[in-house]
């Protein structure tokens, strides 16, 4: 089956006086693994339910394979959804759950049996056909939910936080399996999650949502490297963000902020205006004890160690710089001791790791 596109055009939705989706426009390419990422209440689940037909948009259009589906009821949409709760029916066996959609499509008995067997094989649940959902582990239940949805060979696959009910270790394993399965089936898939790591590791592209508005759409690397606003920068990865004013003086660039004071920036950088924010990620900071000689093309900050968290792969330091705290990640080597609180340090950030966010 050739994969289809999903397009959302100027969609808005309110529940009473609450605007849940505001002028959403989005294009998911055929065969793409696409994530809707945002905190709870951002509208991501509402948008997913809109595509499935459980919510109605008050304005705009939802197009699947170029066809407006706004008026089509959920049971005729051919859009498969895996529910966060899995919604497996406890009064049916695994096989009956999976066969349900095929029976609704009035397929011949023999074909239903063949398809159920095939899809259970796909999710590696062969042999559990006669079990009831209550007799399965969480991971098995999740795979039954996916099998039940895939059985009808939907045009689009919708996943509503499918990993949130699994424990941490299983979650990592399952998201890799999900990614492989999606690539193998080449089915347009939309994945809702509040976990940025989950979205970045599995999906081709991500739409970051907040307060019913799409903040930015891009590949995981684009979002991480070039966040367009404060929300995206903070939601995708960790970041140090400071607001201030930029002044250019005889070729030299200065940044003045109430938080980190007066700082010289590499002259090659081009701030977006006289005011704005600078952003730099903790892992791009090089930290040295004392006051080493300055290097051309770097931003330098001086401060003192205020605290630390050991996270295994790296040490996360809190460094007091003027009136602000700067987060610094330092890769950990075996046997290396951590720096004591109060140690004076110098922080260097290379020019290419500094981002500007317009005011």
């Amino acid at each position: 089956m050739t994969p289809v596109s999903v397009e959302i055009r100027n969609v808005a939705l309110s529940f009473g006086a609450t605007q849940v989706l505001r002028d959403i426009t989005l294009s998911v390419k055929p065969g793409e693994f696409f994530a809707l990422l945002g905190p709870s209440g951002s509208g991501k689940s509402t948008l997913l339910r809109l595509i499935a037909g459980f919510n109605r948009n008050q304005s705009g259009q939802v197009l699947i394979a170029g066809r407006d589906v706004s008026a089509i009821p959920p049971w005729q949409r051919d859009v498969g959804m895996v529910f966060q709760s899995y919604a497996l029916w406890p009064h049916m066996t695994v096989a009956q759950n999976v066969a349900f959609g095929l029976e609704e499509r009035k397929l011949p008995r023999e074909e239903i049996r063949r398809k159920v067997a095939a899809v259970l094989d796909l999710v590696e649940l062969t042999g559990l056909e006669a079990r009831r959902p209550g007799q399965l582990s969480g991971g098995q239940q999740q795979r039954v939910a996916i099998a039940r949805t895939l059985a009808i060979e939907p045009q689009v696959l919708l996943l509503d936080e499918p990993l949130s009910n699994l424990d941490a270790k299983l979650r990592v394993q399952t998201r890799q399996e999900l990614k492989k399965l999606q690539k193998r089936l080449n089915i347009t898939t939309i994945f809702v999650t509040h976990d940025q790591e989950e979205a970045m590791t599995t999906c081709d592209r991500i739409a970051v949502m907040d307060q019913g508005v799409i903040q930015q759409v891009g590949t995981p690397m684009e979002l991480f490297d070039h966040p367009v606003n404060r929300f995206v920068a903070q939601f995708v990865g960790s970041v140090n963000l400071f607001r201030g004013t930029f002044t250019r003086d005889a070729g030299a660039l200065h940044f003045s902020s109430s938080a980190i004071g007066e700082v010289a920036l590499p002259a090659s950088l081009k701030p977006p205006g006289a005011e704005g924010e600078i952003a730099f990620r903790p892992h791009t900071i090089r930290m040295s004890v004392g006051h080493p000689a300055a290097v051309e093309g770097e931003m330098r900050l001086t401060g003192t160690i205020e605290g630390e968290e050991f996270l295994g792969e790296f040490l996360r330091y809190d460094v007091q710089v003027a009136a602000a705290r700067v987060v610094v990640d330092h890769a950990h080597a075996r046997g290396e001791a951590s720096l004591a609180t109060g140690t004076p340090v110098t922080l260097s950030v290379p020019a290419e790791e500094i981002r500007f966010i317009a005011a």
Partner: protein
Amino acid sequence: MTRTSPGIVAIALLIAAFLLAFLVVPVATVVYTAFSNAEGGFTLAHFAAFAEISLMRESFANSLYVAGMTVLFASLLAVPLAYLTVRFQFRGAVIIQTLGVLPLIMPAFVGAAAMQLLFGRSGSLNLILNELFGFTLPLMQGLNGVIFVETLHYFPFVLLNLAASLAVIDSSMEEAGQNLGASGFRLFRKIVFPLALPGYIAGASLVFIKVFDDLGTPLVLNVTNMLAPQAYLRVTSIGLEDPIGYVICVILVVFSIGAMGGSWWIVKRRDFAIQSRGGVAAPLRKLTPWQSVLAYGWIGAVMLLVLSPHLGILLLSLSKVWSFTVLPEQFTLVHYATVFEDSTRMIYNTFLYCGLAALLDVVLGTAIAYLVLRTQLPGRQLLDHMVTVALAMPGLVLGIGYLRTFRGVDFPFIGPLTASWLIFVIAYAVRRLPFALRSCMAALSQVHVSLEEAAENLGANRWHTVRRVIVPLMMGGILAGFVTSFVTAAGEISETILLTSRESLAPMSYGIYLYMQSIAGRGPGAALGVIAVVLIGLGTWYSHHIVSSRSPLDVPGEKT
């Protein structure tokens, strides 16, 4: 923490003795009599004799037929109403809650006489139909009448249980069905109804038991070819020695316990553990204009039917003459005067018996709840189970059991128990104890143990803790249990007609039944019925009021 002291053990033994004497032994006596010959040996001869009599075979078939058809019609009435309230957004919710209570406040046998006048062969409906279209409906003929009256009375059991069951289904269960292509009636049949099956089965099995065991309605409608009326007639006309009556009792008990156990088994076996993992309740659906017309039409029709016994009995109580006319032609208050002149003793008796029975119920209920939930007494669950069995015990069986077990037994001070008014109090209390116990258990399980521990820590002994902390905190549940026991006892008829040995002992329900036996007595009977319904209605309203006015704030330390 062990909480077993000699006092606790004594209370438990006392309760066990009461249940043994007034529940287990009488029922066991009935069963023993059915299976024993003149020398006291085991025999199946009485069952063979039962099967020989064609009237008995007919009665057995009729009882099954009536109970089955009532379940069917009650379901047809209740299922759409339950689905409407729980899944759709519309203003009828209050109406449906009313629909759920209204029929229950009037005992079925009271309404039966009025139903004759409204839907009988020459009742209001058929007079109109005959006038306009030239045909009549045999709604009240023979078994049809019993099915009709029982359906209107008992459908709320299905409605209330099913609605409760529907309300807890995770909405994503339904959405998953829609997502995979099911909608409308198929969605309901394949997903929604099977998921709500536990509630439906609980309600339907209760309806089956109640109808299968009912004595009052068939007797008032003069239908005697059913099991319960046959048992009553055998015992009262042939005498307590006639074994056929006991055989019928055993059949009633077996079917009642079977229906209860069967429903429990079906629900257990199907593994209905609803897995809730962060599913969100979807907003209630809106009705399309067409659906609204259908929904309100259906509710209106049911409402009219449900109110008809109430209206009928009110009209009957106020009518001077009502026969072969659509509505009474002359109105009068004379029936009420008659009732207040002749029957004040019965009204007094009802208050005395039912009040004492309800009091006994809440005392026993509180004590058993405390024993089960707050002590480690071995075998305490047995008390709970014994009480639960009382739920499936037909009043007729218990009544016959009392007569057989206690005849000729003289108690100090009161003489023969079966000739004393105390027998009513005991009989009413035993069969209503399950309701009172549920109420008390629910109330006690809401009281956090730490509240009691705080009292003990400050120096109160166990008895003081119960009296000053536990009982006050349980008071809402205790009152609700009291009122439930009181109102259901006031409408009881099976035990009542068996145990009434002389008229001065009779409560109101017996009076209504007696009046309804004659045409001339229908007016006063209806008047007494109206008084009973008003009393029961007020009681029901009051218990609702008590339960719903208790906000969580009133119960500190409530478990969440």
